[in-house]
């Protein structure tokens, strides 16, 4: 397995103190709580800074007792942020309104800057919520939580298999690419990259064959269509308190601001 693939999967690994009160919460409580933070932030009007600040505060209040190091969170969130920058970087130049400043040949608009700021903040809050969920819960437990929350089983299964096999497939791509390059293949343009197309075709066939083998291995161990669970999840009072502590203030603030606007 290549080091790169390893590193990328580590970004979904748990972090912080595994015995913290947050880590010990039911995965369902953390999913509901952190999805609430994301939804409130995303749905807030553009200039509703108090709502965004409250969301950030809620995340900090979860991360602190879980002892998730800020560096670990930043490492995970920074994967998402470049996408936001690519999408939003033109906003200050094209979205007009408010004050204007000259920046060489370009004009920066106040409202554009504000929109960029709001979009970047919302994306960061969303990414932080997801990173915090994974860091305090771990991918397998998140899947079990989704299943217990009645998310359609097909979706949970596909997500689970993707998590399991993404890097097996990525390693396969790496080996095939290396095999092509090792024989001196160096396309000058995209138009001449026919060999890569054939690599993609071969990869599709290999992945399909693997799917059949995995299915066979499941049948061999008596699989009959439903995914068995070892220990059913059990909600405790702390889980309810966690959800209430996040949900009630944030939703109240969001609704109050929505009405005011």
């Amino acid at each position: 397995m290549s080091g790169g693939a390893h590193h990328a999967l580590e970004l979904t690994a748990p972090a912080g103190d595994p015995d913290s009160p947050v880590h010990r919460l039911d995965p369902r409580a953390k999913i509901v709580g952190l999805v609430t933070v994301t939804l409130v932030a995303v749905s807030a009007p553009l200039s509703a800074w108090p709502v965004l600040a409250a969301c950030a505060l809620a995340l900090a209040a979860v991360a602190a007792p879980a002892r998730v190091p800020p560096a670990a969170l930043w490492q995970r969130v920074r994967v998402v942020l470049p996408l936001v920058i690519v999408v939003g970087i033109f906003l200050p130049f094209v979205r007009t309104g408010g004050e204007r400043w000259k920046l060489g040949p370009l004009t920066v608009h106040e409202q554009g800057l504000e929109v960029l700021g709001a979009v970047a903040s919302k994306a960061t809050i969303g990414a932080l919520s997801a990173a915090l969920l994974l860091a305090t819960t771990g991918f397998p437990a998140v899947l079990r939580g989704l299943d217990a929350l009645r998310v359609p089983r097909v979706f949970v299964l596909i997500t689970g298999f993707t998590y399991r096999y993404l890097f097996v497939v990525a390693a396969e791509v790496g080996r095939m690419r290396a095999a092509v390059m090792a024989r001196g293949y160096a396309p000058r343009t995209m138009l001449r990259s026919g060999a890569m197309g054939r690599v993609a075709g071969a990869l599709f066939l290999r992945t399909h064959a693997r799917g059949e083998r995995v299915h066979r291995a499941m049948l061999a161990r008596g699989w009959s269509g439903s995914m068995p669970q070892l220990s059913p999840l059990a909600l405790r009072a702390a889980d309810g308190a966690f959800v209430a502590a996040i949900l009630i203030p944030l939703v109240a603030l969001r609704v109050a601001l929505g009405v005011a606007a």
Partner: protein
Amino acid sequence: MSCAVHARRLSYSYPDGRAALDGLDLQIEHGERVAVLGPNGAGKTTLMLHLNGLLRGQGELEVAGVEVGPKTLTELRARVGLVFQDPDDQLFMPTVGEDVAFGPLNMRLERDEVERRVAEALAAVRMAGATGRAPYQLSMGERRRVAIATVLAMRPALLVLDEPSANLDPRARRELLDVLELVEGTMLVTTHDLPLAAELCERAVILAEGRIVADSRCEQLLGDPQLLAAHDLELPAGFELGAIARRPRPGGQTVVGGLPLGA
């Protein structure tokens, strides 16, 4: 009810018409360890898939006391454990513990019993403590041993291993042998690794073009260079059959240097 495997005139053709099994006869008693040798494409994997009802051909087939048929699949799969060649195919759950629990849960066992079996199976392959780890965090040798644990947890009457030593470095191969030597019960091992077959199995059969063409004691079969060469098999250079020391079987006979002790 007496045999672990009873196959008579077993035939199977792939949809493209190629015959993979062609009137195969094989009889394996309870408690035997049998190596299935043969060149690539001889039908070894096809045979293995039949033993678990994953493929169905013509002819008689009774495995672990169960007549193979659509009605007996659940029972059959609880009694026959297949360990596939690529552990990445076998380990499909997010964590090792969930994967080992998969088979026992499909058998609808009680939760305590499932937990007991998971712990027991992982201990048997020396992977206790790996419960919460993800398969991608394991080395090839560790993955192979966990794959064996996923099947041991079902306590099969017959354990079938497909190329268990493929892609293993010498040390991981040794660790695998140490684990397999302690596994009780009937075992069928398809392999190209003749020293592994010699160390693990008392009996060996050669499968060629879908039929059993040789069947005898492992030492005898591996000591016949002409027979091996005729079926694209070869012992490593300098390998001495007499130097193989088979460990005492759990509950079985002790065999050293190809001879049973006290014989």
